[in-house]
């Protein structure tokens, strides 16, 4: 195996942060090399240096044996280094082909663009990738998975020999992930070296040849993917053994029903959904992307109109028409996209925690009781273990796991006892994930009724007391949680089409 990239002794400081400490990394021709580490371990920073987005403070980078300095993204492109960013860097209003060739549009000497040429070139790239995407389609009309394919096509159009993928499957469902893996394997067989950043252990094992682990900006080690256990990799990442045990499932048959939903309907995505949730219970919602899980949560929360169906909270029928109604009924929704919907990032921790409860901390002249708020915020920070220098820290400066906890704190302070978590650990690293799982357990033990929506089956299996599975807007079955249910059983229900009706209930 020949080496194509060697990075050694890379140092990088950001204001107040020593982001990379003598970091190193090497990459072989035609290998898929996973780069792992908790959030903030420096993986993305290191790859941004390789792709010319950041300049290192010091250190050496060799590409194909020659010492190089990579000043900007263009220089990286010239060296055959392409990066697919975690947050897709596409222009949604432009067409697929226009996106791929941005900055390199073929044009004649009067600067006139040759649209037909780029469409043809884009078509050719998709043909080599063996995917079918219309080059003239507006990118905003494509699914996230298709947009990712466009990003890959763009990287390939530079004749990239080195392709960096930063959490490429974060927003993909199982099928789409499979499609991506097929493309990765094809590229690999053509000699493209791929750096694969991901938090998903099972993917790393399946797709990568070698794994390099980073921690706190430093290099920990490189191991072969085939002959290393997941536990070893995790302990390299966190520097300690993780508690992987699943908590015992309590017997809740006698517990009062906190939330009962009957015949819920909303368009094609929610079709006749009925279930019950008991106090102290964690009900997992599994299904492929687009199965309607988030839509069910949004309808229950009043964010989308309920076309039919009844919602009962603690035995009383509630006519929930808006999120305000839902919150008044004690339902809190922790949305999938914390940054966009769940948190005001520029506001401090205290302000975010207080947001839904401000009316209780202000008098009739609307004066805010800051002292009371500070106390309440301090209690939540302590009980949830939110790591923040103070309650006046802006939320955007916290890590993903701690941001998630701030959202939880905000609903707990509002006395919500029915909590709906939509993808609670998306974008959160392994260590923080375990902590969120423990927290869910603690909340359930304290009598909260909890719904967890997740696209990661291991996560569903780990946290749920019961598992509701959806497919194409219908609830196709409810399975018991714990070891007696396999991923295979869930997938069977998650892919059951309407043509094969069959009732399954736990």
């Amino acid at each position, binding site marked *: 195996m020949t080496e194509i990239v060697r990075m050694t002794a890379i140092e990088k400081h950001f204001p107040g942060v020593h982001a990379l400490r003598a970091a190193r990394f090497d990459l072989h021709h035609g290998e898929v090399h996973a780069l792992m580490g908790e959030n903030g371990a420096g993986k993305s920073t290191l790859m941004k240096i390789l792709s010319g987005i950041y300049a290192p403070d010091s250190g050496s980078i060799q590409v194909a044996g020659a010492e190089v300095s990579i000043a900007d993204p263009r220089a990286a492109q010239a060296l055959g280094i392409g990066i697919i960013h975690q947050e897709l860097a596409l*222009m949604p209003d432009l067409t697929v082909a226009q996106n791929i060739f941005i900055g390199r549009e073929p044009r004649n000497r009067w600067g006139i663009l040759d649209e037909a040429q780029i469409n043809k070139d884009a078509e050719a790239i998709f043909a080599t990738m063996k995917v079918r995407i219309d080059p003239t389609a507006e990118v905003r009309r494509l*699914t996230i998975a298709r947009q990712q394919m466009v990003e890959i096509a763009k990287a390939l159009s530079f004749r990239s020999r080195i392709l960096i993928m930063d959490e490429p499957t974060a927003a993909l469902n199982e099928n789409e992930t499979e499609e991506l893996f097929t493309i990765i394997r094809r590229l690999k067989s053509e000699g493209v070296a791929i750096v694969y950043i991901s938090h998903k252990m099972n993917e790393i094992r399946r797709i990568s040849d070698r794994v390099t682990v980073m921690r706190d900006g430093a290099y920990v080690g490189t191991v072969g993917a085939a002959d290393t256990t997941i536990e070893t990799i995790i302990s390299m990442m966190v520097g300690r053994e993780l508690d992987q045990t699943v908590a015992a499932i309590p017997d809740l048959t006698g517990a009062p029903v906190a939330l009962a939903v009957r015949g819920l309907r909303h368009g094609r995505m929610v079709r006749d959904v009925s279930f019950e949730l008991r106090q102290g219970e964690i009900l997992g919602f599994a299904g492929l992307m687009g199965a309607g899980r988030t839509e069910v949560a949004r309808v229950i929360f009043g964010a989308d109109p309920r076309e039919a169906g009844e919602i009962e909270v603690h035995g009383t029928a509630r006519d929930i028409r808006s999120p305000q109604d839902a919150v008044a009924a004690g339902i809190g929704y922790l949305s999938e996209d914390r940054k966009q919907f769940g948190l005001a990032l520029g506001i401090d921790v205290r302000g975010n925690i207080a947001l839904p409860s401000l009316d209780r901390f202000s008098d009739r002249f609307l004066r805010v009781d800051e002292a009371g708020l500070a106390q309440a915020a301090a209690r939540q920070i302590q009980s949830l273990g939110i790591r923040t220098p103070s309650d006046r820290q802006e939320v955007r400066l916290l890590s993903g796991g701690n941001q998630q906890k701030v959202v939880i704190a905000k609903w707990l302070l509002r006395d919500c006892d029915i909590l709906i978590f939509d993808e609670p650990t998306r974008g959160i690293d392994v260590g923080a994930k375990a902590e969120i799982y423990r927290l869910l357990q603690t909340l359930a033990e304290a009598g909260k009724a909890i719904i967890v929506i997740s696209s990661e089956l291991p996560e569903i299996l780990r946290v749920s007391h019961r598992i509701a599975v959806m497919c194409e807007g219908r609830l196709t079955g409810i399975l018991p949680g714990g070891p007696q249910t396999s991923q295979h059983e869930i997938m069977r229900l998650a892919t059951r089409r309407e043509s094969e009706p069959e009732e399954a209930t736990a």
Partner: protein
Amino acid sequence: MTATDTQQGSKPRRPASGAQQKILAFASLIVLLMFFSVASPNFLQTGNILAILQATSVNGVLAVAATLVIITGGIDLSVGTLMTFTAVTAGVVLTYWGLPMPFGIIGAIAMGAFCGFISGTLVARLKIPPFIATLGMMLILKGLSLVVSGTKPIYFNDTPSYPALSTGSLIGKLFPSLPIPNGVVILFVLAMVISWVLNRTTLGRYCFALGSNEEAVRLSGVNASGWKVAIYALAGGICGVAGLLISSRLNSAQPALGLGYELDAIAAVVIGGTSLAGGRGSILGTIIGALIMSVLLNGLRIMSVAQEWQTVVTGAIIIAAVYADMLRRSRAG
């Protein structure tokens, strides 16, 4: 497993949505024309139609400039006073310095481009929000116009052919039955050129790309701030054309004029369906938007509606146009 899941979205499900807004705006224009034709016999007269077109020329040119900046996701509040400043520049060159007319034309456009370059630099290099940067430029240019002219109008008495720049009619000379003023011809030629630039050149492509996702443009290795400066400079140059048109129509550079023109220009852009969020828009839409505004004002005037009420109606139309656009967009999903 679900074939629809993976195939979905690979084909565009509807035509480019900008087209619909243009059709909507165009239909509104036709409805307005029909309404006023029925309401007043004086409306559909050649003289009146030419007056409407003539009135559109200045606002139309400014709106074309504003469209470029708005598509990048920015806003240019300085187009009105920049127009005035370029008019004053033409006055200085032609009347104070006594140079021949081509120098005045080049001077005004070059000054416009230079001021646009400054605005663009403030926005793209110093990262000052466009609203603030161009608000500052708007006041600076208003002040400079008064300073340079000594707060008095500059007349173009030494350049007798100057008024013909906008009010003369080359077409009328060739076809006496079609006395379309030059100002109108300039507007339409300019609109066609800029429309072509937007759709067929790199500059236009980056215009849409910047408004769509500026970070993505930068990460693609494109000199994003350089192109943005160029777009603002082009917009500034176009304001120079507007400065020439208005000063030749008034046969003088009026230094106190200009404030408020930027809002009419932005209104025309918005009515024409260009998104204030950036990334989508068209010159054709903007021209239709500018025509809607002048038809409306002209028609209301002919129907003897008080000027105060004309302003009220214009405001209502802007809100209605944007709301119609939002409705259409939410239906498009």
